[in-house]
């Protein structure tokens, strides 16, 4: 190495280590992986797709046996029927979505540069609806959007989460989502991170707190049998638990949070419409 290149390389190296401003989404994700590796060195993080169940082998075994004959089979039949029902134009959702809706959920949310905002899979569904003569559904509605995505997302089972943050506008949306993750809210003053980064694996009463990694891989969930809950409905529910009146599903604050949140699961396989307590 010549006389100029060496100090320059050293300087750049120091800059990379010392300046947090240079940290991007991938550095954030790797720091999160390291955080959990330090906290739970013996745990296989691949199991984080099971959420809190990853911390309790008995509960995980019970979950796996429930999933052999899930109590929400009839709901899934309704979901498939809804998926196959043509819209007013005569086209189906498979005609409208990329790749017929198969193996795409892991790419969402994505940043749409033309629109200048984050687009969730649910927004893509509503775009299909409005382009084909239908009214947009309410985000988070378990009987319409929730039910349709309960089937749609299963078409991506096994796909690895593949969120991309490219360019300044996308980075800004990601950073906004990250800020929401760490921002304390409500009378009880919790952030998402309080429980699901720093507290994951600990218990609140008898419930184990799930880790941020893996959390976005399996929505919607059917809680207590047949109660369908979407990811953003759960966000609002979490806000309620800390006594904060949260935004409704579909709000940009949640879309950007989902963008950051999903990035933390990059590389993990998706499995939709699963059972949760």
């Amino acid at each position, binding site marked *: 190495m010549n006389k100029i290149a060496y100090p320059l390389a050293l300087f750049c190296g120091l800059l990379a280590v010392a300046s947090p401003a240079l940290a991007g989404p991938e550095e954030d994700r790797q720091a999160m992986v390291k955080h959990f590796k330090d906290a739970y060195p013996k745990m296989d993080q691949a199991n984080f797709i099971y959420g809190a169940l990853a911390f309790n082998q008995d509960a995980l075994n019970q979950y796996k046996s429930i999933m052999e004959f899930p109590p929400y089979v009839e709901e899934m039949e309704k979901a498939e029927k809804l998926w196959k029902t043509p819209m007013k134009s005569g086209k189906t959702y498979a005609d409208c979505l990329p790749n017929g809706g198969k193996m795409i959920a892991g790419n969402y949310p994505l940043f749409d540069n033309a629109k200048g905002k984050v687009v969730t899979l649910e927004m893509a569904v509503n775009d299909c609806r409005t382009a084909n003569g239908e009214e947009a559904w309410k985000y988070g509605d378990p009987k319409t959007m929730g039910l349709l995505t309960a089937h749609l997302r299963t078409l991506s089972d096994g796909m690895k989460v593949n969120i991309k943050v490219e360019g300044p506008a996308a980075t800004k949306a990601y950073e906004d989502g990250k800020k929401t993750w760490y921002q304390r809210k409500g*009378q009880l*003053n919790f952030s998402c991170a309080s*429980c699901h980064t720093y507290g994951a694996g600990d*218990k609140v*009463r008898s419930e184990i707190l799930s880790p941020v990694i893996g959390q976005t891989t399996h929505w919607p969930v059917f809680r207590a049998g047949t109660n369908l809950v979407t990811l953003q409905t759960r966000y609002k529910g979490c806000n309620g638990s800390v006594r904060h009146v949260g935004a409704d599903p579909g709000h940009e604050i949640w879309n950007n949070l989902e963008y950051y949140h999903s990035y933390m699961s990059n590389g993990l396989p998706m499995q939709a419409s699963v059972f949760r307590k």
Partner: protein
Amino acid sequence: MHIKHLSGALVLAACLVTPALAAEPAKPGLTGKDIAFQLPKGNCLACHAIAGGEQPGTLGPELKDMKARFPDKKELAAHIADQTAFNPYSAMPPFMKHGALTQEEFDKLVDFIHGL
């Protein structure tokens, strides 16, 4: 002075938060233990093991030997009122800073916790 500040804070809180979020008046007969164990009140059990409480959480340390840890009850009270003043990273809700308990409930709760 203290009462004046508190009533001012309550008026401010009433303007800023929805009624459902403001601390409801203490029910007569609610003990410090009730307040520590019940979900809508202190709910200390959510995170701390406490003698006599079932299915405690593990986010915070067990509450025991409190007189040895806090010989001065006022110091314990300050921690319960706003733990983030001592440790900004603490997950513990700042109960009095955010008006989650009435003064009467808070006093009863501090007495109970200090006795553990």
